[in-house]
């Protein structure tokens, strides 16, 4: 039970931070608050026993993406340009977010409850992974065994995506004089 209370409190904190991110105009503060949100999410994942996901969220969300955002901000300005919307646009935006928010809430009604043992996700291949993976791969961390062996093709595809994205950014931003820096 205490876990559920902690998760509830952390999610409330996330909502407060999200509102702050929307209201603030200092890009630096927004980037740092987004990093803080990632840390809170990582804590939530840890409470849900998803330590691998929590680790990734902490290093990527709070670590590297914050550093890359700061690097990007250092190339532009630190303040968001003031931008006033007309009232009609505001009403339209409110309508769109209310409708899509209601749709998302409606969709969650179909989702299985947290930790439901009869949820489809826990009934399909998960049982086989838990039964077989330690013996057939010799790797105690099942997450690693699934990602690297059972789903080796997926992970290869992910690495190819990271490679392609990186090469794209480098091709766009780099000055192709030889390394004289």
């Amino acid at each position, binding site marked *: 039970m205490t876990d559920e209370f902690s998760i509830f409190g952390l999610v409330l904190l996330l909502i407060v931070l999200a509102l702050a991110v929307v209201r603030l105009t200092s890009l630096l503060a927004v980037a740092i608050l987004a990093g803080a949100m990632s840390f809170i999410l990582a804590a939530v994942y840890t409470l849900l026993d998803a330590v691998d996901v929590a680790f990734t969220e902490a290093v990527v969300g709070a670590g590297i993406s914050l550093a890359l955002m700061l*690097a*990007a901000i250092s190339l532009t300005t630190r303040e968001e340009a003031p931008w006033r919307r007309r009232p009609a646009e505001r009403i339209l935006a409110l309508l769109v977010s209310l409708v899509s928010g209601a749709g998302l809430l409606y969709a969650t009604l179909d989702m299985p409850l947290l930790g439901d043992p009869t949820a489809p996700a826990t009934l399909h291949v998960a049982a086989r992974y838990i039964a077989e993976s330690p013996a057939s791969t010799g790797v105690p961390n099942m997450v690693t065994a699934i990602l690297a062996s059972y789903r080796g093709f997926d*992970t*290869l595809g992910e690495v190819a995506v990271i490679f392609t994205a990186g090469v794209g950014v*480098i091709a766009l*931003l780099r000055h192709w004089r030889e390394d004289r820096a």
Partner: protein
Amino acid sequence: MNEFILVRVVVKIMVPFILLFALYVQMHGDYGPGGGFQAGVVFATGIIVYTIVFGIRRAVEAVPMSAVMGMVCCGLILYAGTGFATMALGGEYLNYSVLDSADPAHGQHVGIIIIELGVGITVAGVLTAVFLVFAERRARR
């Protein structure tokens, strides 16, 4: 940020431990949380912190851009190449069991360690390279 002596000294002490922690996460991913992806990110973070404090000039002295570009490619080649190696040994693409003919589970373990290394090298390379090209652009202004 080079003018703050406290930051400089602390970062100088911290960076080797960040890189060591990255290697630990890389090599311990089969027993504890983490793995190639997280290790690559932590490794890149170490280099990025060094770059932020000591500047792009000293950073590319330590890690030249050509080496980083090599990492970007080598990791993916290592991963994809493991698949071809298992094919050459008579298995399916990325079926690591054939890496150890006597003990398939050990073969799986070896394969997982190799491809996680590939993931880590590419991720570390890409993230370092992206930050370095940003910093390079800023240094030229």
